[in-house]
């Protein structure tokens, strides 16, 4: 198996195990993601993909092992500290601010980027924050939601909520973006728009880890693919290598986990 040269690695999941009681949800996970690359994690249902993402983002502590991002150990850090280091995440079910307007949804993460994890910013008014507002509007234009900026985010369609959440992550210009099935539940048209968008941000040099069921999405975007089955990485390589790997075919078709 080809191993990338060490100095290019921005995310290193080092020897991670995760047990839930007797269940070995993740075993022996070693994953290295290179700067600027899109790394896809695929695998059948229950393979441990979301668990792995939760361990990376600090939502679940690993039983053993560590996650290192750009020389900083993420394990044991709070979610907001991990975000402030430049890691953003799109969830499987969109996590947005349903009671705020679409525009406010996108402005909020821009404040986190500018002002840090905590700042009592109560003497200025949101209406005075023209720079952040323009940035947010630009972002909404990118994802095609600019016409809905004043709408309550909770009233958006599921596909639009996903695009909104993506915009909320992208406005922070994260160095690492984690995407948990970003196109699940989208129409083919919306899926293609999202693929185009993700390709566009790839050209800006953002590193991405993406979990996806849709093979069309995976093969359009991924530079490298890891295949997870039964909590273990059973194969890793370039898309073409993975596509032809008999173990992968077995995991998907034979149900051997």
């Amino acid at each position, binding site marked *: 198996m080809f191993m990338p040269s060490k100095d290019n690695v921005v995310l290193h999941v080092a020897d991670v195990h995760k047990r839930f009681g007797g269940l070995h949800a993740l075993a022996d996970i070693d994953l290295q993601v290179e700067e600027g690359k899109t790394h896809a994690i695929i695998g059948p249902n229950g393979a441990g993909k979301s668990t792995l993402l939760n361990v990376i*983002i600090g939502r679940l502590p690993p039983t053993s092992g560590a996650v290192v991002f750009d020389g900083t150990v993420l394990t044991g850090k709070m979610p907001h500290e991990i*975000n402030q280091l430049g890691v953003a995440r799109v969830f499987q079910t969109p*996590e947005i601010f349903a009671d705020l307007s679409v525009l406010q949804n996108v402005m*909020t993460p821009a*404040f986190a*980027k500018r002002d*840090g994890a905590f700042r009592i910013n*109560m003497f200025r008014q949101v209406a005075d924050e023209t720079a952040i507002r323009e940035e947010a509007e630009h972002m909404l234009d990118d994802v095609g939601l600019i*016409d809905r900026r004043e709408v309550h985010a909770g009233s958006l369609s599921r596909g639009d909520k996903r695009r909104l959440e993506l915009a909320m992550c992208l406005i922070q210009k994260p160095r690492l973006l984690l995407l948990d099935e970003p196109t699940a539940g989208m129409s083919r048209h919306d899926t293609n728009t999202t693929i185009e968008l993700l390709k566009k941000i790839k050209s800006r040099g953002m590193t991405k880890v993406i979990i996806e069921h849709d093979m069309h999405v995976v093969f359009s975007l991924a530079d490298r693919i890891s295949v997870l089955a039964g909590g273990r990485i059973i194969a890793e390589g370039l898309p073409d290598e993975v596509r032809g790997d008999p173990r992968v075919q077995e995991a998907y078709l034979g149900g051997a986990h």
Partner: protein
Amino acid sequence: MSMSRKDLILFFGFSAVVLLLPILAAPFGAAYPDLLQRFMIFGIFAIGFNILFGLTGYLSFGHAAFFGVGSYAAMWSFKLLSTNALPAIIFAVIVAGLFALAIGFVSLRRSGIYFSILTLAFAQMSYNLAYSVLTPITNGETGLRMALSDPRVLDRLFFSTPPGTPVPSLFGMSLSGWNGFFFSAALLLATFFLAMRITNSPFGMMLKGIKSNQNRMNYTGFNTRPYTLTAFVISGMLAGLAGSLLVVTDPLAGAERMRWTASGEVVLMTILGGVGTLVGPVLGAWIIKYFENIFSSFNANVLNNFYSFLPDGAREVAVTVSSKFVGEGWHLSLGLVFVLIVVFLPGGIMEGARRIGARFRRSNARPEARREQLSPTAAE
């Protein structure tokens, strides 16, 4: 420090209503300073409570504790420093803020119902401390009041203190009657202005974000704990301000102001008026204080007169039934109104007003609405 046109209109409209209350409340028989002062005081209490509950989404069942602490602190300032109201309210706001900082620090480690229960527990502890344990500070069930023998260091330093029972003042100006009302009104307007600025600031947007989705706030890079604690402390300080004003107008600080019923009352005010709105909590406070005043003054005599048109037997039944809902039992009526509001109008009076407004607009602008429906939505 720019304000949008909408905010300016809202603020000046609100100020006009508050300052004209002595005239506007006359037809309702409420235009006397003692009652209107309570309108101002509980308006401040409700606005402060709404910053925590309405904006941040944390339902505190113990805000009366800060109200009571404000009362005691102001009274001690009257006794030890000066009968001037200004140092008293400043001292009360600081003490209530410190108190809120301590209680908030512990309570905010939990959210939802566990947070509410923690605040309730702290408030009941405070009530019991005030009622019995800390009698030297609070004077127990008798309540704390001013006395001739009080040290009043600042006063005695600069003036020869006048004879007679000391009363609160503002730089020599008496605060009884209408003076007291306008003093409280000025502070209500300041509180309203502050709440408006907070609501429209980036900080306020963060609080709304926490209410809407705390999980997303964390993954967006916000440390939500200090945000909620700040909101809690601001809200506790405003409760302390309200508590101190009550002592300014009625110089007696008692433990019963810290009871859980008092904490529940501010929750009712906020929900009745409209959670998360600026004007709603104030309206809720006014309505509850107004009807408390009306209903609790009813007695069998008044009811007998009211039902005098009925024949004797029917009148007795009507009086017996109605008397359960007025006087001491007016909380029964309040409870019924509250149930109706929560079931049929969960957004409170402000939502009712919005619905009526929307209906008017729809019937006025029907052709336009139809045109809008025909044009395709641009997002698709």
